[in-house]
């Protein structure tokens, strides 16, 4: 791989005036003259704007005319301009990693506007350092990895099915894995769905039919993912059954394992009195056509937004309002009270739904954590006592059915998923996304995506949007057919490595594994997965791990150049 011609560095330095941005404070001509006499520099010039058409062609011309094999540009910031200058090198036939950026705008002319002499001196220093590093630069290649044109979707609820369909409709093979014997997930137990009060079965059934019929989707029912090895592009998946069908390779993975509703543990006499049920139990009754009762009291936030479980599960207020609405609709004479804390009917539809429920006669009473409602009754709930803020006294509500609204909690499956896929869980036990704000459907690890309530409680509509989102992310690599790994990555000097495993624990991308080499155990870095963050290199107690493009030798050369 070592190119002999590269061992004799021929460095070209291009210093940018950036109009007067740099030129007015840094004596660019002097800096160019200075650069010219640095060792291995065979060409130096200045450009009014190195990023302009003229500047770019000057770089290309310089590479050809002076047979340059390293290029240093001293101008603005790599954040915006490195890709441009690297591309210029590539177009002139030079590996783009033989390019080095020196920032003399942000670090010289801008910060030292009032001391141009020093700015000039510093620019020369930085260029000397850049040249010292450039001398040692080596060409790097981004490994291209083939992507198996198939995806795995874990979870056969509505969200998982939608993700599978989206991918399959784009022409990719999809393996849909569902632990139950039937598709549909939690929605199979649900009666109707807000905001249109559509029967859940009317959504779930046709969807399941579509999935089953789709030629591109292979559904694995009553199955669980046992093992996943490999990385983006080629994940080797093993299901817990036996046989050929249970082993396959996919390019990307979508996780949609959902969540489950909390079962109350004795709150408000749940389990002790027969007429205390959960919303899901209410749904199941209503689904069967059973009456909910004449006096229904619902209590929201049971087990949620309390010190032991601080979060709000987002969908429960709407669930309560929906069921209250449905009770009033089918039996206008029934009395329904919702005892709630903050009412989370965000957006357009929920707020409208809430208003309609009030118009239908659903009563809303606010309670606080300091004054919880109390159950009154012997053997079964007869009344619920609650402090009414507006009346400013306690009132007692007649109650023949008490419905507890409980939050969604992380499914037990999350633990397994976390282990099998080597992805993290958050502090609540939900799956942890790559970035809460801007990468909500991705995991930190490439090629694995998340949607639905496994990440955070979501309603059906939001879940479906997330399914599309995760599918679109998963489709990217499948559609391209290849992925490129980062060329600036870490590598291990196995002779120095003691196999202590510090790196393995710290690696945020699960790119490191301790492997055996005969007697010895050494760290092994999967270049396809490594992102080049440098954490392992910094932590390695033996100094056995280095980073391409930021080798110790290169960095020390810069430091030496600074103090020479």
């Amino acid at each position, binding site marked *: 791989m070592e190119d002999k011609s590269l061992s004799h560095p021929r460095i070209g330095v291009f210093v940018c005036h950036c109009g007067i941005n740099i030129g007015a404070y840094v004596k660019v001509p002097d800096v160019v003259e200075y650069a010219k006499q640095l060792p291995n520099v065979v060409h130096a010039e200045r450009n009014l704007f190195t990023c*302009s058409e003229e500047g770019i062609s000057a770089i290309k011309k310089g590479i050809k005319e002076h047979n340059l094999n390293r290029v240093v540009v001293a101008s603005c910031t790599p954040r915006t301009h490195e890709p441009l200058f690297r591309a210029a090198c590539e177009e002139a036939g030079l590996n783009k990693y033989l390019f080095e950026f020196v920032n003399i705008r942000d670090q010289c002319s801008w910060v030292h506007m009032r001391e141009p002499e020093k700015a000039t001196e510093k620019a020369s220093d930085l260029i000397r350092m850049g040249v010292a590093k450039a001398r040692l630069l080596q060409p790097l290649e981004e490994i291209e990895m083939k992507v198996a044109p198939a995806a795995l979707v874990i979870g056969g609820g509505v969200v998982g099915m939608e993700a599978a369909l989206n991918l399959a409709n784009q022409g990719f093979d999809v393996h849909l894995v569902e632990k139950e014997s039937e598709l549909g997930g939690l929605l199979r137990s649900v009666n109707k769905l807000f*905001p249109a009060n559509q029967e859940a079965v009317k959504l779930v059934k046709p969807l399941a039919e579509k999935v089953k019929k789709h030629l591109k989707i292979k559904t694995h029912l009553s199955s669980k993912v046992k093992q996943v090895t490999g990385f983006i592009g080629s994940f080797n998946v093993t299901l817990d059954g036996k046989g050929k069908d249970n082993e396959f390779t996919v390019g990307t993975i979508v996780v949609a394992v959902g969540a489950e509703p909390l079962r109350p543990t004795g709150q408000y006499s749940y389990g002790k009195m027969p007429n205390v049920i959960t919303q899901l139990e209410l749904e199941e009754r209503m689904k069967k056509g059973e009456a909910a009762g004449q006096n229904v009291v619902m209590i929201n936030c049971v087990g949620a937004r309390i010190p032991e479980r601080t979060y709000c599960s987002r969908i429960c207020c709407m669930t309560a309002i929906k069921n209250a609405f449905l009770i009033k609709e089918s039996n206008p004479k029934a009395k329904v009270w919702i005892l709630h804390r903050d009412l989370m009917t965000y957006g357009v539809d929920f707020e409208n739904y809430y208003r309609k429920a009030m118009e239908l006669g659903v009563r809303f009473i606010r309670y606080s954590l300091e004054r919880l409602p109390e159950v009154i009754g012997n053997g079964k709930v007869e009344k619920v006592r609650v402090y009414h803020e507006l009346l400013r006294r306690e009132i007692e509500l007649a109650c023949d059915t008490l419905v507890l609204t409980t939050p969604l909690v992380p499914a037990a499956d999350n633990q397994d998923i976390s282990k099998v896929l080597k992805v993290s869980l958050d502090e609540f036990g939900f799956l942890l996304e790559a970035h809460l*704000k801007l990468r909500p459907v991705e995991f930190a690890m490439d090629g694995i995506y998340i949607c639905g309530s496994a990440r955070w409680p979501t309603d059906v509509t939001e879940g479906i949007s997330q399914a599309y989102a995760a599918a679109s992310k998963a489709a990217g690599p499948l559609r391209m057919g290849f992925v490129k790994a980062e060329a600036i990555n870490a590598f291990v000097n196995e002779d120095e490595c003691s196999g202590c495993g510090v790196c393995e624990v710290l690696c945020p991308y699960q790119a490191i594994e301790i492997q055996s080499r005969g007697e010895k155990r050494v760290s092994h870095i999967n270049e396809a997965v490594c992102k080049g963050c440098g954490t392992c290199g910094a932590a390695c107690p033996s100094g056995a791990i280095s980073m391409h493009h930021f080798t110790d030798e290169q960095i020390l050369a810069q430091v030496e150049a600074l103090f020479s």
Partner: protein
Amino acid sequence: MSKSENGRKAVLVIGGGIAGIQASLDLANMGFKVYLVEKSPSIGGRMAQLDKTFPTNDCAMCILAPKMIEANSHHNIELLTCSEVEKVSGEIGKFKVKIRRKASFVDWEKCTGCGLCVEGCPVIVPNEFDQGIGSRKAIYLYFAQAVPKKCVIDKREDRPCKAACMDACPAHTNVPGYIKLIAEGQYKAAYKLIRETNPFPASVGRVCYAPCQEACNRGQMDEPLCIRDLKRVPGDQWNIEELEVPVVAKTGKKVAIVGAGPAGLSAANDLALKGHSVTVFEALPEPGGMLRVGIPEYRLPRKVLGQEIGYIQKLGVEIKTGVRVGKDVAPAKLKKDYDAIFVGIGAHGGMKLGVEGEDISGVMEGIEFLRDVSLGRKVNVGKKVAVIGGGNTAIDCARTAKRLGAKEVTIVYRRSRAEMPASKEEVTAAEHEGIKIELLTTPTRFFGESKKLVRMECVRMKLGEPDASGRPRPIPVKGSEFAIAVDTVIAALGQVSETDFVKELGVSLSKRGTVEVDVKTGATNVEGVFAGGDVVTGPAFVIDAVAEGKKAARSIHQYLMGQPIGDEEPGKEPDKLSEEEVEEVKARVPARNKVEMREEPVDERTEDFREVALGYSPEEATEEAMRCLAGCIEGCIQCHECERRCEPKAIVYDMKDETITLDVGAIVVASGLGLYDVSSLTEYGYGRIQNVITAMEFERLTAASGPTMGVLRRASDGRIPENIAFIQCVGSRDFRNKNYCSSVCCMHATKEAMLAFEHHPGTKSAIFYMDMRAVGKRFQEYIARAKKEYNVTYIRGRPGRIEVNPENGNLVIWYEETVSGEVKCFETELVVLAQAMVPQITKELARILGIELDEDGFVKVRDKLVQPLDTTRPGIFACGYVHSPRDIPDSVTQASGAAGRAAEAITGGK
């Protein structure tokens, strides 16, 4: 132009906010070609306006900018900013979209986003990106981190005049520009702008002959703008000495300038700014040339001139006074010691009358007389003074003589009043001061007694055929001789240069005795020697000398840097408006006469050398400046200042809108959110009470890149508030306004309250709310943190009224606390309203796209449950706030989802 590359595989994304960017990136990463259309000049959208984001308190720009840059550099994404969709035809899989690309008036291929143009632009308009709190220029970068980082000109209408002033000015000073700045009270900026082309704004603003004013197109309508009088305003109303000195890298080149007059000092100024070392040699004891010794103090106070020369010295220019080149310094030594020489010695020699008796004591030469008076030398002026000549020097001599005690002063001029070269204002002022003017008269002989002048014999003249100068030749009328009793005669006939040393340098002179140069560059026949000003042109005006000095400086710089000495672009002749244009202007702009400048009373002002003209007050200046036709339009006034500064020559004033047609298979609508106007909710006083602001305004006030650089101050007194109240649901969940919940405000207010504390620790915030809707991951915990660590109190209750405490500008909020049922009041220093947010899509755009909107204006979806991102038209998808009220993570998710749906749609799925 039709772009059909990859036809079916292309997708159009409308809206460059975070949702549009995310949808574009996902599609591009799937290999589709993406056209990202954004109305404003940069992508980034609302998120770019935010300081930080909840619940992580990540800096919004820090997490957004990488996405913006990625979108810009992605090979599958074509950014179309400043663009709007005009027409959509076709159907899913084969849409044809017409896009209007609005003219930016800047060639983005050339623009480097350096912002030099912005600095120079004189037009200040409210900055929409900062919610109108701060201001921007007419040429501007949308925001500091704009992507693409390109400037645009906010040009809304054509200038009604032809800016003839700039063409008429020998220095081409940006008259409309500085007039605009004066109108806005931006005196420092105005001074700096004038100084770009003339280092003596305050001095020239007093003594210029103002050819600009003569050319002013407003003169064709009512009266020309008082440009000269306005020009002195910045120096009058702002302290020149506060002008900062730029730091310039030295070139190491040395330039000698001979003569510290306006030409020499202008050249010195420009050369110093280019980093050359400049030494000025001045024969007289004071610098300034004719500005110092030719123009009397009552027209130009020494202090003003001294300040302007002083600034040039601050630039590092060394002025050696009392050193006469040729006598004290050998010209050869200059040539040896300096890399270039500029000769700007002016014309300080007087001319003889050639009349018998001229050497009698009491007959003086005008320019020498003025010089002696100016330098405080002893001058004897009698009681009865005659001044010979009709130029400004003659008037100056006469008015000076009056101030030195002469009882009777008469100006004797050989032609008629119409031919007098002196400016009319000067002649009028002289007459007001009691100076008589004898026209068509010339002296023929002076008589003395005891060697002292007592009488002057004159002859009357009549006007004959035009002479070489084009003026009628005066012919003596025979037999019309008469005598005037005088004790002093001052002959102010003209000036010549004293050019002895110039010859020694080997420079060739004309027959008139002036230095011969290449008129385009100021170069003489000797290499490295340049000349300009009166010594080249003969006696002329200050502004001519300034222009000459600057021209030579440009050439000298090029010469020193080894560049070809280039010609200056030829100026064009000042244009007049056609008759129709004058009528148009009259219809557009109301007639208004000029504002007269006040003067010292005649009786008092001739007692001493106090300045006669008193200058404009700021109010008068604004009133007069507003008369400028160029300045009365909105946006860019087309003064071309940006063009002058733009190094890559990217300004294209006549750029036109362009229409392109794209073939795309699917469309994603991500046009984002607008802000509901809450001034209609009068109980909160927004727009009426200064210290009531909106949450988005608050955001810009805390943003480090915002108009206050991140310092949160309230408008009434600039105080940093320590108590802030946030009022939620302003316009949201309100049947009078928007029924719906805007979804993000609870968390937004919590974040802002935290930021207030972070910016100013100890700040207390109260948030008035109905329900605290915190349904996202870590939102409840965020609120708990706000209460615990950031002094945030949550008060459930809807305020009904806000009053101002007149004593301190604080706000008193009246509200009913729902928990206790009591009506309470609460005093706070600042109120922040959580204004409702609305979908940002016009009915017109919906019509163009052929999609339906719901009653609140959000994009209607085909089936809320199972096709949540599909609009009512197949192939068109929606995401982000325009779809439904949602926060950033939800918008980003929907964006990726819409991208997925679009991909499905164009690859054959349904």
